């Protein structure tokens, strides 16, 4: 029997009111792949992740994680939302925020204990934020907030990670730290899907890529499908990969 895909999406279609934002998306992602999702604004990149995770209700389609329907395999999936999706003035500390990553495993009512705390410390250490663990989250810079968000997902200890624009507006240190963690996750056999906006860095950061613009244009290894043809189909006719990307 063939090994199941880490992520398998069939015929996923999402509409807001009357307008379809995702149309018939099929996606098969093998285990251990770092995949970027690229596409113009309004292409449905964020919606695709949200639909896969059940945050947005699709009109049609199914999602399988390691061969099982997503809702039966939720614990194997971790999520890093867009930084702007929460109120950072919320009264809590970095450590406390990261601890939320353990809530899913704990289930209802049960509170995080010593083990979860230990895990949260380790996750903060990995993203280089341990020194800031008692900081109020609004006092962190944008990049630091993003790293704390990543630490929370690391604490989930999943096999598949979905990240929504984790590199959006972060400083160079954070970008490097996050990419290192992505590569580490990849080496450990985890599958990581990242909504990404910077085409220049796609070949450097990812080994797979999905071109999205309401419909799926292409999915596959960067080496095979990251070329002008697909970029033109995704972004419009006269799009050329800049020289920086080709070198």
């Amino acid at each position: 029997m063939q090994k199941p895909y880490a992520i398998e999406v069939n015929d996923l279609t999402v509409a807001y009111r009357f307008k379809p934002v995702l149309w018939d998306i099929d996606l098969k992602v093998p285990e251990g792949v770092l995949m970027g999702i690229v596409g113009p604004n309004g292409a449905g990149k964020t919606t695709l992740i949200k639909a896969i995770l059940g945050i947005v209700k699709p009109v049609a389609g199914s999602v399988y994680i390691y061969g099982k329907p997503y809702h039966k395999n939720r614990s194997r999936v971790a999520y890093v939302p867009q930084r702007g999706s929460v109120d950072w003035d919320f009264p809590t500390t970095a450590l406390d925020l990261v601890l939320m990553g353990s809530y899913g495993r704990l289930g209802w009512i049960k509170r995080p204990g010593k083990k979860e705390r230990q895990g949260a410390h380790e996750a903060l250490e990995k993203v280089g934020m341990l020194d800031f663990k008692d900081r109020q989250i609004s006092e962190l810079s944008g990049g630091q907030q993003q790293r704390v968000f990543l630490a929370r997902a690391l604490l989930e200890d999943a096999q598949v990670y979905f990240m929504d624009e984790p590199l959006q507006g972060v400083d160079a240190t954070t970008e490097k730290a996050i990419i290192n963690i992505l590569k580490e996750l990849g080496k450990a056999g985890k599958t990581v899907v990242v909504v990404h906006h910077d085409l220049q860095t796609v070949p450097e950061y990812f080994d797979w890529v999905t071109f999205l613009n309401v419909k799926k244009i292409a999915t596959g290894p960067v080496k095979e499908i990251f070329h002008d043809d697909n970029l033109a189909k995704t972004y419009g006719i006269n799009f050329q990969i800049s020289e920086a990307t080709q070198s």
Partner: protein
Amino acid sequence: MMELFDFIQQLFTDYTSRTIGLGTIVLGIVSGVLGSYAVLRRQSLLGDAIAHAALPGIAITFLILGVKDSLFFLIGAIITGVIGTLWIMGITRFTKIKTDTALGIILTVFFGFGIVLLTLIQQMDNANQAGLEDYLFGQAATLMEEDVFIMASLGGLSLLVVGIFWKELKLLTFDPQYAKTLGFNTRFLDVLITSLIVIAIVLGLQTVGVVLMSAMLLAPAAAARQWTNKMGVMIILAAFFGALAGITGTAISASMANMSTGPTIVMVAVTLVVLSFIFSPIRGLLSRKIRELKSRKTLRKSKTLSVMYQVAINHENYDHPHSFQLLNNFRGFHKSCIRELRNEGYIAVTPDKQWKLTKKGFEEAQNLYVQKNE
């Protein structure tokens, strides 16, 4: 002032005062805790709408029963309060109307309907109707032992539920979408916390009234937020502020003739908010201004010192005296700034009113200079 002490004494001895005092404390605690969720979930206006939507519920209950009964009034208020809430949620979900507009519409429609019913009732030939209009601005004096008992048990139950679902409610409040991906039923949690907020509001109607109840819900929480960066501490503080406002407001209104309790409690709560916004050491306006001024001063000092350094290094010995005029030619400096530099031993002033860097000042300036050019 004497009356205030009298009141405190009465609290322990007099049955009526004790009942009212206990009632307002319970109300303050419950609305402080649940108000914190309303504030953090940015549902402040929803509280106001729910409170106003409760008025027709009370009036209809009276029309059905023909007598005043606070327990049934509570149930009636909850029913129309919930209907109002669902209506608002429905409007924002299924139409393009924004939340603030929906809140405004529902609030006024329900309140208007409630007032119409109240006027109708007043024209009726029912001797029992007197005092029903107390629900507009509240009348703590009408609190009976049974009322306080109901408030305490319903309020206590609400707090218990908050305690049980503490982790889930915190997660829902901060990041509901993430909560969903962790497998929590966010719809259930949403309904749960909103229902608890409705209960907290309805519990206060008799004491504070439909018009002012939202202030009782929001003020203690807003004040508490200023003093802490931890959600748990905020909620405990909000409960404390709520109780404080309740008992102080009752005391003030009891010691001054004919001052209505509800509005007085609200005024005390709002005073707490104002004081917190000004004096809180973390987020207060005052401490922020002080920090800002301090950092400006330090900046100006190091700026002046580095200008002096640039002048001094043009000479063989760093303590070569220069006129103050010279500094003016470079850029503006402050008299108080020079004075402080001198007091701290960074510069010295010669008898003929010229300045020179001291050894300490020279080294400090050198440090600053190196830092700047790194």
